Structure formats: structure tokens, C-alpha cells
């Protein structure tokens, strides 16, 4: 399955079906992470139930230092 994540085309296994599984795939489960899927921002509780499909555009963002 091909996804566009943070502007990059990324191929991930077809077995990944949800946003939470995608987060696990990249070993980001312990990170504070915010996900936007096809321009829809997801609440954290939605990660587990939101399906990922081929061609999805995802933004995975975090807080970084700033003033």
C-alpha cells in the first residue's frame, strides 16, 4: 500500500489497516503524535478505529521547541 506521509511517498505493508497500526509500524507508539488524514485531524481516540487505505495523504506532527 502506498501512502503519502509528511510529503513523502511511503510503501507500507498491506496488513496495516488502521492509523494506530501505522503508528506502530513506525515505532511511534510512545511518542506524542498528532495525525491528520486527508486533511481531517484525528483525535487520539480515533486512531484505533480510523482505516488507512492506499493513496491516503497523512500528516504526522508533533510539538517541537518554539517561542
Amino acid at each position, binding site marked *: 500500500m502506498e501512502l503519502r*506521509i*509528511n*510529503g513523502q511517498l*511511503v510503501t507500507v505493508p498491506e496488513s496495516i489497516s488502521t492509523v494506530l497500526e501505522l503508528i506502530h509500524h*513506525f*515505532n*511511534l507508539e510512545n*511518542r*506524542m*503524535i*498528532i*495525525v*491528520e488524514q486527508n486533511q481531517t*485531524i*484525528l*483525535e*487520539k481516540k480515533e486512531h484505533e478505529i480510523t482505516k488507512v487505505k492506499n493513496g491516503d495523504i497523512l*500528516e*504526522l*506532527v*508533533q*510539538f*517541537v*521547541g*518554539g*517561542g
Partner: protein
Amino acid sequence: MLKIGKYTFHSRLLLGTGKYPDFDIQKRAVEVSGAEILTFTVRRMNIFEPSQPNFLEKLNLENYSLLPNTAGAKCAQEAVRHAQLAKASGLCDMIKVEVIGCDKTLLPDPVETLKATEELIKEGFTVLPYTSDDVVLARRLEELGAHAIMPGASPIGSGQGIINPVNLRFIIEQTKVPVIVDAGIGSPSDASLAMELGADAVLLNTAVSSANDPVMMANAMRLAIEGGRFGYEAGRIPKKRYATASSPMEGMSV
């Protein structure tokens, strides 16, 4: 006490978290500063480097209120998206609206700042817009329902201090919500002056993070802001053109 919307704070120093030499110095500076509100920004994660450290994850977040900013936004729409992304973390509903309109000076775009503030207030955020020191703009932001007004002292990161105390005082005098002087503070005396002018708080970042000793400077800023606030509340004497003796003149011939 500093009251911003539904929140109450003891500290009047808001600290940014950018550009520290390392996480240990940053953590110690944050602790010494006494700040209860920390600012951050939202950026894409490097998904291929899951082990890269993040300062925020080293903090006990229960001790702090988070004030994400919308830095990087060039228009209201982008600022609103940044705010929504930050809120989706579930960690904060406060947002510092920052829409830069000039790459060279990093001065805010007043029109887009107004638009973003209006939209985010409608969406239920606690909104703190970063603005220039424009008196009328500050009034317009307050009329929209902004929970605090954040006029810059001078350009972001410039360390020039307060370049227009007259305008800042006008804003402070006419504004009922807290006025937080944000950007351009270079030294403890700059921060103290902001507080002596009557500001409710100061937000700074570079003055601490880029100091030779950020931890000591964080402490200096804390003390300066406390001193400036006490000075404001105590009420300074008016300036006079000529001297007035402090010692009594009676009994001089004894």
C-alpha cells in the same frame, strides 16, 4: 495572579522552548524560571527516526500549561489548522496566534491575525494573539474576544528590548484582558520595564535560550519580572526636573 480565560497562574513569565543548547540546560532553565506556561510549535515528525528525543516528552506535563503557537503560518487558514492540530493532542486548548507577514522583520500580519483570532474564538480556543504594538489593533482583538493581547516589544529574537514604551502603555491602559509583552526582550531590565509599564506578563525565549548561561538568565528573568511587577503595584514616584532633598532641612544649624 495572572488570569487568562478560565486559567489562573502565579508566574508572570511565559517561556519559549526553542534554541536551547541541549535538553538538560533547557529543563533546568524551565525549572529555575518558575514558568507555568511553556510555548511550543507544531511540526512534521521524522517518521524514520522514531528514537529522536523530544524535550516535551521529558517534562511532567501536569506541572505546566502548554501554549502552542502557530509559527510558520502565513495566513489565517494555516494558523487555524496549526491550532486544530495542537488541540488534537488533547493537551491544550490555549493557542498563541502567530501569523507572520514579513520575512525580514517577522512582524505579524494584522489582517490575518484578526481573521485567525476570530475563527479560533468561535471554535472555543483560549486565544492569545501575537500582535505588533498597534493600539487600535489591540482594541479590535479584544473586541473579538481574545483572552490576552501579546504585543511585541521589538522584532522576534532581536533582543532590542522595548522600542515603543508609549504604545505599549496605551495598550496596557485601554485593555481589560491581560497584556503579555512578547518578543524582542533581550535583558532582565527589558523584562522589568515591561512589567513596570503595567504588563501582566512577559513571554520570552531567545533572551534565555541563547544567553551564555541560560539557567542563570532564566533566574534573572524571573526575578526581574517579579521586581518589575512589585514596582508597578507599589507605584513609582513621578519624574521631576529638579532635585528634592530626601533629608529634612530643619535643624541644619545644630
